[in-house]
């Protein structure tokens, strides 16, 4: 399968017709690539082909005519050399297991999914490696609110992969004057940063909901980034990745945007609503709620010091009130170096 060809641009596949998948399909088509956008629902696919709009998620964006929607998953594997994967994290394994029958070693897979698989604690790229024979795998992540990218506001993203070829292909397909694509070899750091910032977005919304000011928020974000970095480095990430676009960049966009679902969950919890009540009137579960559980449990069993994640977990799942949990983070009787010192000693053995 030819992947990149300056003259006869190969077909690009996009899996998932949510707002971000739709925008990525539009960007690729705008660069002259024929694009197949896969949606699970055949009617939704037909509607997009009829109206050139994604009425459910992005009604205001008129899609580039190069985008064709389809509900035929296997056709994507057969026709497309590069596939952007933007399905919800919990649907990834099953989708790729099916698509895997049509993939071979030449395919390039780039996912733009934020999440970690519960129990297995697997990152999305690890699931791709497990469900397909593909090796040329990458992750796209950054401060990318889909609506702003669709409006053409200047923004940037990161594609991380061990394969230069993957970064080049993804960049070639997506970059434009308003959308810059950076490369990074650190897949682990990029995935961890993108997934765990959702936990901090809940904390950020909570701080606002409790009426705390900017000091508190700055504290949560900086120390929050520190604990995300600690976990990431333990998994093999480069600490520098967390100070880049896919780390602190993404964190800032999510935590300062009141529109983010995770921020809203935190905000409403702080105002006294129960998680069940919030869940019942949100159309999609905020990814951060699931991630908090996955990460807090992992940190507990592996002895990683993550006080903010632990605090959010206690609020979401153990009935602690936001006020006591957040205040607990500032408890001076607890030596903030304790966890690290224990880890240093453990690391020597």
């Amino acid at each position, binding site marked *: *399968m030819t992947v990149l060809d300056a003259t006869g641009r190969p077909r690009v596949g996009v899996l998932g017709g949510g707002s971000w998948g739709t925008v990525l399909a539009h960007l690729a088509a705008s660069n002259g690539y024929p694009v197949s956008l896969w949606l699970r629902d055949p009617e939704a696919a037909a509607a997009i082909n009829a109206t050139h709009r994604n009425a459910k998620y992005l009604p205001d964006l008129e899609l580039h005519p190069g985008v064709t929607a389809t509900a035929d998953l296997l056709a994507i594997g057969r026709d497309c050399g590069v596939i952007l994967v933007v399905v919800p994290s919990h649907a990834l394994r099953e989708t790729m297991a099916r698509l*895997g029958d049509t993939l071979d070693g030449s395919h390039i897979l780039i996912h733009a999914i934020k999440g970690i698989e519960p129990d297995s604690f697997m990152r999305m790229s690890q699931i791709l490696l497990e*469900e*397909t024979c593909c090796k040329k795998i990458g992750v796209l992540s950054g401060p990318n609110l889909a609506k702003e990218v669709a409006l053409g506001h200047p923004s940037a993203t990161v594609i991380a992969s*061990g394969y*230069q*070829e993957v970064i080049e292909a993804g960049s070639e397909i997506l970059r434009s004057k308003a959308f810059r694509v950076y490369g990074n070899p650190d897949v682990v750091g990029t995935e961890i940063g993108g997934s765990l910032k959702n936990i901090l977005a809940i904390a950020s919304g909570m701080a606002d909901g409790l009426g705390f000011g900017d000091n508190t928020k700055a504290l949560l974000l900086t120390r929050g980034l520190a604990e995300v970095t600690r976990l990431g480095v333990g998994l093999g990430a480069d600490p520098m990745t967390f100070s880049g676009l896919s780390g602190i960049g993404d964190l800032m966009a999510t935590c300062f945007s009141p529109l983010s679902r995770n921020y809203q969950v935190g905000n409403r919890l702080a105002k006294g609503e129960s998680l069940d009540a919030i869940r019942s009137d949100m159309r999609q579960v905020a990814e951060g709620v699931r991630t908090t559980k996955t990460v807090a449990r992992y940190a507990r069993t592996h002895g990683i010091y993550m006080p903010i994640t632990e605090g959010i977990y206690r609020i979401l799942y153990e009935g602690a009130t936001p006020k006591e949990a957040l205040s607990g983070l500032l408890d001076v009787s607890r030596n903030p170096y304790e966890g690290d010192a224990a880890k240093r000693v453990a690391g020597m053995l």
Partner: protein
Amino acid sequence: MPMTPPGPNPGPLAAPAADGPIFHFNRDRDGIVDEVVDRELARVGGSVDALELALNDAAYSEITRLEKAGRRQTPELNFWRELHRTLGGKPLAEKEAIYRRLATGYARDIVGNFDLKAYRFATSVVPMGLSLIMRPQGTSRRFVNMNTTLTERVRIQGHVETLQALAKKGTVILVPTHSSNLDSIVIGWAIYHLGLPPFTYGAGKNLFTNPILSYFMRNLGAYRVDRRLTHGLYKDVLKTYSTVLLERGYHSLFFPGGGRCRSGAIEQKLKLGLLGTGLTAYINNLQRGAANPNVYIVPCTLNYPLVLEAATLIDDQLQQVGRSRYIIEDDEFSHATLVGRFIKQVLSMDVSVVIQIGEPLDPFGNRVGPDGRSYDKRGREIDLRKYVEVHGVPQHQAQRDQQYTKELGVAIADAYTRNNVIMPSHLVAFTLFQILKRRHPKLDLFKLLRLGEEASSVPLADFYRQLELLRDELLMLSEQGRIMVSGVVRKGPAEAITANALRSFGMFHAVPPLCRSDAALSAGDMKLLLFYQNRLSGYGLEALVSEEAQA
């Protein structure tokens, strides 16, 4: 995948090999050296920049090394200084000539030998002779064939039939864990025992100083690696030599841990340089349209209840200068009597050395079945060519291929973890060490290592309880395929496991890692204890040792 059932090996597993390219190595040797040098020149020749870079780098690295070694005016040092001084002004043809001369010199230094007579001698006469010295204690037999003794004491298990089948379908690279200089002897015997032709392998040049060892290594296909030489020119010649051998179908043995593992842990950081030659050879084979292009990488673990060089290795690890003392010139292995005593004792123990053959991999880290084909994690067959084709033609791409090799390294490290066979000595050392660590939470590692006998004494009842707990967890992990355990660890009650470990330790180490009194167990040599317990690190078992052990 079928596993060889536990139990002693049923005699030689196959008739000795009589064919394979290794048997006409000497005839091919000059051609191989020429091919290596030609390829190197094809890579850099004609390019002033590439030649100057390679030669200057070599000169700089050699001058630094020789000066550090205290040399002042040797011809070698003078040669490099002169080269360094005059290189820039020489015409291209002369630079090429110098490069060719150096590459040829290195290739000749590296190249091995194969002597059928030495092979026959080593596989038949030597075991008989050695058996006289190494007669197991307490047997009344006057002549014990060492092959028999090894057959009883060394157990080869795991994907044995697959390995044998793949050796006929392509080129095999065996990648064992490495903790002792005995490894190459044990592996060499296992290869013979499995009916495979001898494998070539790179051995540290320092090992060739022992005349007897040197005779066998040189004549059984080992080639010489001079680890003191760190410059690109030498390393490239070495890699190309390995690549050419693989392409010509010579099965090879790599120790990807790069030297013996100092800590006693199962290796996780692997050297990828030589490992990458498997992929290079595969792509070259495809480009040439070779009949059997496939290269198979077979991870295996060598599991000893005791390690001869344990004391030196862990000392080196603790001094944290493992890197600078990459080559240990003088250790237990250089004392012939010690080696003899060790072999004799290992062979007379009632425990086995276990060679666990892991599932074979392709150069991309996918698993390979007995049919020689690659399968993904969901069992779909993989068309390997697709990984390396560019516009339908197999091609080398340095960055991509490096990444493939990195993923192969991850797959090998994972295989090591899963095929690590835990013996009583490891489990007993781990249990005691972790109890002591838990009991002294404020002590850092170095203070912990200085604990006296009294401070390290643990009541037997407590010890047994913790050991059973850990053993049960190990059994669960082994059910899930994440680790393996030896028969005694699987079946024995805590008392039997502990007694077995004490017996092993007592056989060789002058100060055993642990001692037993009437009702308690205490540390003898804490450093050795650390060495043996490290074999169980990385499985998250530490957290299982609970506070209650604080008696």
